[in-house]
């Protein structure tokens, strides 16, 4: 909204400078955008929040200024002289859709001379950025910018059939607006129609056929109420916003419907001549229900934390147009002004008093009591995982939650229900809520490689989105739905980096270790890596990470693998990439943040290497389980030194694991004999469980 300071001074005489005015308006709710000079006038652009349609006119802003600077406010009371001949003789009005248009009024002015506007009118409109058209159109614009009520003037002679009907547009009905563009309407929009068709799109714009032209002599002046949603649907649907639609979407002052009509009629007669016909042709019921509100004066201090005397509270409300109905010691009862539809509760009055009194009076040194707070398990889990990845040299990425088809995978690691789809797309072509972060990270790695980025190893912590199957989601009952949403949102931490499976596995294990979930933990938690087949990963080079907990079913908490050729190529990547994704929402319940650990042994250790030959198909995971079982409590660490195959020396289909065992006791120095017995037990267990043979 642009305000002309000259125009403002018609209603309130201010001694303050423009800067002081702008500052006070800014601190009372009318945000300042900019100020500039237009001839001898000054334009001030302010931002008006959607709850204050009264400030979409100069009078509303003048009222604010009058209250802020404690100056009187002067609002004209136009009473145009009416001729004996009634308007109803020339026009009839009917509303078919009260939901779209609660109230419609028409005035008739005859014998006007359409021509250029006087200079003062041209100048005022120019200050606020409105081009002059002709005297009649300029007056309708002027009055709208004065009081916030949009008006429309039709050439009465071009209204066919002498009858106005407010109805729903017919689907597919066509309409040529005064901008000479033709629009196809839908039945959510309202139209003003004459006997043959639409002459205006209700609340938005008039049509070209009935606009005021040089030869117009008789005018139909429309002042009406239109429903905000219908106006909004028309303006947005047709991309045809106007000053009129903007105001109707925010509901102008109902009392201004008649005032604006009188004001414009009086100005037309004064500037363009002619005579106002008798009476107003009306249809419908004016929608106005100003609230009556009780204010406890003590409530102001309870909300604001500052004392404002009761008489000051009352002065502010009166100045804003509230009418005191009763006043007693502790409170007062107020009728809200018609233009303040947003004020209907006590708290609304408190806000009015606060913003006029000024929030600068609210102190900024009122302490709140100390209250202890701790990081949640989720926060700690997320942060610990990120800390490991950052320490290991990865950069945190943030990719879009909604992706295009190209970044979709046929099977997510977290279920095969199809992705949820949103409208509109987040960005062009991206309308699927992702079920895994990995394709997005691969794309980001590819984009980095394309610009020569050095080692773009990336990770991200974000949610995935999985549609729950229909029976799993509780249908909402009544107004308040169940707390659970029908969408499962796994909290994922995912990374992609150059290298082999082993490189990625080491990284994943480091993250798990920092969460207190080791591959072999004393606390009963255990993750195992098991072969898995997923589109994203190269065949035979991927694993699922399964969490095992005592007394609970094992569940997948992660996947890891070398990325298959197709997704690599899709991301523009050539060299091997390993990718992993962990479900922190499943791990956070297993995370062991405060482990109880035992004191390290003071006694020396003994190291023994064993070379075990097994069949090719025996995985290391099985062998290590056997080693642990065989060695008992003395095993401190079991380290894989080497894996090798040699058909000649080991035999075909065999491989050798060279394992280094570190043995140590908590109760004394191990003897060579004890170590020997332990190694023998390890070899025996490995033989029993994995068919392993000790290589001499």
């Amino acid at each position: 909204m642009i305000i002309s300071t000259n125009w403002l001074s018609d209603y309130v005489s201010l001694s303050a400078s423009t800067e002081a005015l702008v500052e006070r308006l800014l601190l009372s709710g009318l945000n300042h955008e900019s100020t500039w000079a237009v001839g001898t006038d000054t334009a001030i652009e302010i931002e008006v929040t959607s709850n204050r349609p009264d400030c979409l006119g100069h009078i509303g802003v003048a009222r604010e200024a009058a209250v802020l600077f404690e100056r009187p406010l002067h609002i004209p009371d136009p009473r145009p002289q009416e001729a004996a001949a009634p308007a109803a003789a020339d026009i009839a009005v009917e509303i078919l859709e009260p939901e779209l248009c609660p109230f419609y009024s028409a005035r008739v002015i005859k014998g006007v001379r359409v021509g250029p506007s006087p200079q003062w009118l041209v100048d005022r409109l120019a200050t606020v950025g409105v081009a002059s058209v002709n005297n009649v159109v300029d007056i309708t614009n002027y009055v709208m910018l004065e009081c916030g009520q949009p008006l429309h003037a039709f050439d009465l002679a071009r209204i066919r059939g002498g009858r106005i009907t407010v109805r729903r547009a017919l689907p597919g009905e066509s309409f040529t607006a005064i901008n000479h563009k033709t629009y196809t309407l839908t039945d959510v929009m309202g139209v003003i129609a004459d006997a043959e068709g639409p002459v205006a799109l209700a609340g938005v714009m008039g049509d070209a056929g009935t606009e005021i032209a040089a030869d117009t002599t008789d005018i139909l002046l429309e002042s009406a109420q239109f429903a905000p949603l219908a106006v909004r649907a028309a303006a947005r649907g047709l991309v045809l916003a106007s000053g009129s639609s903007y105001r109707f979407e925010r509901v102008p002052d109902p009392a201004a419907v008649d005032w604006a009509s009188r004001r414009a009629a009086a100005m037309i007669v004064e500037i363009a001549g002619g005579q106002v016909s008798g009476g107003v042709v009306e249809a419908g019921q004016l929608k106005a229900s100003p609230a009556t509100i009780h204010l406890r004066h003590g409530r102001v201090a309870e909300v604001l934390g500052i004392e404002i005397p009761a008489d000051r509270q009352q002065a502010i409300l009166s100045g804003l147009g509230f009418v005191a109905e009763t006043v007693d010691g502790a409170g007062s009862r107020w009728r809200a002004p018609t233009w303040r539809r947003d004020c209907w509760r006590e708290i609304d009055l408190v806000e009015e008093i606060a913003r006029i009194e000024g929030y600068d009076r609210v102190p900024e040194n009122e302490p709140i009591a100390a209250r202890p707070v701790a990081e949640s398990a989720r926060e700690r889990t997320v942060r610990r995982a990120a800390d490991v990845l950052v320490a290991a040299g990865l950069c945190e990425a943030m990719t879009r939650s909604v992706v295009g088809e190209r970044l979709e995978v046929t099977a997510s690691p977290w279920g095969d229900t199809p992705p949820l789809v949103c409208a509109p797309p987040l960005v062009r072509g991206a309308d699927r809520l992702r079920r895994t972060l990995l394709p997005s990270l691969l794309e980001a790695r590819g984009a980095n490689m394309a610009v020569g980025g050095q080692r773009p190893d990336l990770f991200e912590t974000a949610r995935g989105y999985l549609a729950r199957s229909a029976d799993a989601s509780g249908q909402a009952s009544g107004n308040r739905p169940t707390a659970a949403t029908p969408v499962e949102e796994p909290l994922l931490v995912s990374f992609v980096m150059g290298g082999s499976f082993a490189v990625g596995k080491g990284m994943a294990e480091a993250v798990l270790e920092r969460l207190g979930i080791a591959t072999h933990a004393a606390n009963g938690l255990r993750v195992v890596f098991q072969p898995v087949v997923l589109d994203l990963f190269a065949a035979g080079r991927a694993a699922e990470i399964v969490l095992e907990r005592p007394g609970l079913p094992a569940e997948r908490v992660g996947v890891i693998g070398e990325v298959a050729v197709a997704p690599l190529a899709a991301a523009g990547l050539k060299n091997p990439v390993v990718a992993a994704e962990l479900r922190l929402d499943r791990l956070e319940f297993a995370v062991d943040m405060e482990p109880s650990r035992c004191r390290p042994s003071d006694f020396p250790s003994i190291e023994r290497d064993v070379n075990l030959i097994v069949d090719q198909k025996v995985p290391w995971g099985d062998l290590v389980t056997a080693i642990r079982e065989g060695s008992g409590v003395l095993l401190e660490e079991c380290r894989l030194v080497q894996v090798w195959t040699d058909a000649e020396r080991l035999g075909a289909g065999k491989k050798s694991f060279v394992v280094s065992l570190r043995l140590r006791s908590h109760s004394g120095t191990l003897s060579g004999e004890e170590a020997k017995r332990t190694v023998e037990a390890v070899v025996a267990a490995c033989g029993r469980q994995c068919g392993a043979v000790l290589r001499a």
Partner: protein
Amino acid sequence: MRRERPLGCRSRLRSRSAVTVPKGRDDAARADAQAAGGKPAEEAVVIESFLAELAAFRDAASDTLGGVAESSGLEQARIEFLGARSGRLKAIQKLLSGLAAGDRPAGGRHFNEAKAAVTALFAAAQERLAAGDVTGVDGAADVIDVTLPGEPVRLGHVHPITQTIRRVQEIMARLGFESVDGPEVEDQWHNFEALAIPAEHPARDPLDNFYLAVARGADPLLLRSQTSTVQIRVMENRRPPLRIVSLGRVYRPDTADATHYPMFHQVEGLLIEPGTTMAHLKSVLRQLASSFLGGDVHVRFRPSFFPFTEPSVEFDMEWGGRWIEMGGAGMVDPAVLAAVGYDPDEVSGFAFGLGVERIAARRYGVADIRDFYRNDVRFLRQF
């Protein structure tokens, strides 16, 4: 340029050090050698003087070999100390036969030790020269070019948006606010109704939200447009007193440009306690501002309009002599308290929200917020 050619750099240094062979020390060592070798071999030798000879030999060899800086000098030293024909070691070996029979085993042992030690010194010097090390400046061993690059350690980087969120979280935690988290796909109740945004409100327009195309009766789901949804969920399940910060991704259909992105992050604070006033709100925001921006920062309220707070304000922070818009705030609307089953006459509270991208952009001087989502490591590694 220079970083890409370390070899060229290194060879220049080596040629420079070649002119600083410690001549003086070399001459002194040679004089010692002549003195030691001057005695006839057949003469009887006492063990003490033999051991002294050995010690002198070791010291001289150590000095010379430690200071040798080029291969010709090394060869010269080898001939001098270890040469098979006329080296000093050879000369001392001849003295061995002059020792008393009883002293010979001990003498032999010392001789062998000295021989091994000097041979090792020679090997070390040889290795050092082969590796191109720079030594010999003023005769001191192990002098390095401290300006050569260190072995790089690759550091990862936390995303600037995460850093900003963590910073706000940490400050708020000190004020007793607990971080909470909630779903990003929301229903109408939590995203609108409970926040006093009625069905006809423009904020619910399909063009202004990302609605999901899943049939769910009359209650369509959408990607949340604000993190206030989490506050509703917490209030529904807990009783006051309550201090929380909810944070995370939110979604609004804006065309991406330098200051807008359809996905962004919010941090929202909520405090519900009996007797809470706007003075508490202003004071908490001032503490947040002072900790976040550093120094004693003042806060300014400008009246505004949000459906879920009343009174509603925009809050600015004074920074570098200017007022900077930080976010929106207000007292929790009684309708919101009632919607979650609280009695608005018994408890009151305040809420505030910050757009993370905006304050991160300001804090780091990022002109285009789309940079936060390009995931270019050249950008990310600056944080």
